[in-house]
């Protein structure tokens, strides 16, 4: 089979079309693997990932995020590239993708490539093109920077396997949290076609780990792990359902990251909700915060939400919200509490909890020491004691603390991989609205 790489179209025009078509995939992280260059090519990777720029929506630009082609045989209702849309179509050649990646990388514009694709002719045909492209990039162009590729649902497992030995990260998008929603909005995709490659990649990563123990020289398979994305707000699922799905993806599929993408209505399809207020950004933000609590703070989804209380509090971050509903556990004594207890204190992050543990070996900590360590006292003061004393004489009473916390701007965990960056500004908006509302 042939595909027309739109011979007459210039590279700039293609780049425009295929970037436009790729931008709704929110993942742009280059994290998860530390690899030095071997001196024979170009590139390396840093475990924390590196952002290289920020676009006008404040999102991090880390990778050259493009589709190989925006031709597609499917007709997913939420997608700008669906078959029934009349939009300009374009396809790259493998060499064009390689040249762009190399040219951008050496100028330090990007950390690497994020290659996704519409489905051209057949999932196998598309996966084969993706494979050939990154094979070329790794072997001929000797590119050693970061590569994230999509595994195309329904593609031959052999192709996915081969690709996994060249990529740093792979992802299969779950798209929608329930099989029912998927059936309604993405009639050509099936839940099992999405979960099968996910499981395959998970098993591949596990086998590879064992292999690497035996032979150090064994090639790496998807060393930066697997991620996925769910669209938030296109279908009626609540936050509780979304978090339960995310939790099981972490636990049962060993995913590295779950991304949440506030639905942007590009097609005005009657099956889709109209969103007069724009994409549900605050909701997306709360989901990221809760996701963070699952991955780094030892929380379970069922501690944060329940059938009776299925959505996050708009005004309070999920951790403060949890703490206010569990005042019986507070205050904790900073000089004695264990790491897990410290992590649950609003205003104490992973880094400051670790620093508290280290610093208190050299003697009891006072409130001014906590400040140096990076604890946000304005938030923490209701929940801690230092050597038995609270910072001020305050009431430990839900309404009172809630009112006080709401007057403090939220501080969020700092991450280099872009997604959490976006969180800062949303709170300005919240405060702004609250002021306006009086």
């Amino acid at each position, binding site marked *: 089979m042939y595909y027309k790489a739109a011979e007459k179209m210039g590279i*700039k025009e293609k780049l425009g079309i295929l970037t436009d078509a790729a931008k709704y995939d929110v993942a742009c992280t280059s994290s998860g693997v530390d690899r030095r*260059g071997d*001196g024979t090519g170009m590139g390396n990777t840093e475990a924390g990932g*590196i952002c290289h*720029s*920020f676009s*006008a929506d404040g999102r991090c*630009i880390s990778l050259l995020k493009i589709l190989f082609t925006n031709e597609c045989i499917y007709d997913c209702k939420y997608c700008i590239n669906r078959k029934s849309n009349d939009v300009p179509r374009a396809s790259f050649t493998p060499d064009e993708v390689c040249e762009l990646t190399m040219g951008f990388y050496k100028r*330090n514009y990007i950390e690497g490539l994020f290659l996704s694709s519409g489905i051209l002719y057949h999932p196998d045909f598309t996966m084969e093109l993706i494979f050939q492209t990154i094979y070329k990039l790794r072997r001929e162009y000797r590119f050693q920077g970061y590569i994230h590729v999509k595994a195309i649902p329904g593609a031959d497992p052999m192709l996915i396997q081969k690709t996994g030995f060249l990529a740093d990260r792979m992802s299969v998008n779950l798209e929608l949290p329930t099989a029912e929603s998927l059936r309604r909005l993405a009639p050509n995709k099936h839940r099992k076609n999405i979960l099968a490659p996910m499981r395959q990649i998970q098993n591949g990563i596990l086998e590879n780990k064992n292999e690497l123990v035996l032979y150090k020289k064994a090639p790496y398979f998807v060393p930066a792990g697997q991620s996925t994305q769910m669209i938030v707000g296109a279908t009626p699922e609540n936050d509780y359902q979304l978090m339960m799905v995310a939790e099981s993806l972490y636990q049962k599929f060993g995913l590295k990251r779950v991304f949440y993408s506030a639905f942007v209505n590009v097609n005005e399809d009657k099956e889709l909700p109209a969103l007069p207020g724009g994409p549900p950004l605050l909701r997306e933000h709360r989901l990221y915060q809760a996701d963070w609590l699952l991955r780094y703070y030892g929380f379970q989804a069922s501690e944060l939400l329940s059938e009776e209380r299925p959505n996050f509090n708009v005004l309070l971050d999920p951790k403060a919200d949890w703490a206010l509903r569990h005042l019986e556990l507070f205050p904790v004594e900073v000089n004695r509490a264990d790491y897990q207890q410290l992590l649950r204190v609003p205003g104490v992050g992973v880094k400051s909890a670790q620093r508290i543990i280290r610093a208190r070996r050299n003697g009891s900590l006072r409130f001014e020491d906590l400040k140096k360590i990076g604890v946000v006292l304005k938030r923490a003061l209701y929940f801690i004691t230092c050597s038995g004393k609270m910072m001020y004489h305050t009431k430990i009473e839900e309404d009172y603390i809630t009112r006080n916390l709401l007057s403090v701007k939220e501080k969020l965990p700092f991450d280099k991989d872009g997604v959490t*960056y976006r969180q800062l500004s949303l709170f300005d908006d919240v405060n702004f609205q609250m002021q306006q509302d009086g």
Partner: protein
Amino acid sequence: MVVGMEEKYLICEDSLEGVFTGIYEAYAMKGDHGHMHIQIGEEENFRLFAVYIKVTPDDVKAAKVAATINRRLGAEVYLDLCRALAAEDGEKGEAVYKTVVRGLRMKEGSRVMGALADDFVHKVFELSRRTRNEVHHWKEFLRFQELENGILYSKIGPRNNVVTFLAPHFSDRLPLFDFMIYDEKRGIFVVHPKKREWYLVTDKDFDEREIGRYAEKEMEYQELFTFFCHKIAIKERKNLKLQRNMLPLRFQEYMVEFGQ
């Protein structure tokens, strides 16, 4: 005042070598560290009854101090001290000196950076973090431009002295390229000839005006990337304030996609 207990100020050069030599001299004097201080550069207001001693940087002495720090406090603390000394700050010499003293008194010197309740340690911690953050920012935001002769050239204006931390990063990434990074505030160039080790030269040895013309392709790539940045933004999520928070203006002037 007790005789012999006057405050002694060791005046050191603003460099790793300078401050480490100062620490060497402070130990050699065998006095009470509480009454000895390291100061970088000249003092503006001389204190009465204080003694000022000028320290000339010395390779051998500095290397001994570096070796002791590495052995007794560990490579990680050593790196924190180096980062602190790369920061632009008048009191960094004293903070590093007193942190070393504290560390060498501890049973497990490698834990000294945990003692954040100590003001000197905390200062080193803050300065080290400041440098590390800026190094990271330049890894993100520095741009190379390709010259006609194939050299990749980058100009930056960092607040702290970061080029020596950037050089290993880019040497590992671009081993087969000739590249240069120019710190225009301090007049220092990192020079990396392909397949060889990088080194530093100052603008006394090299004139920035000798940098040749840009390669023909260079403008094309700048245009492509600028276009990409424009296309990747989702207009329904537009948030310029967030963009500016993430990417302070002082970096934007060095970035091709924000074009001058």
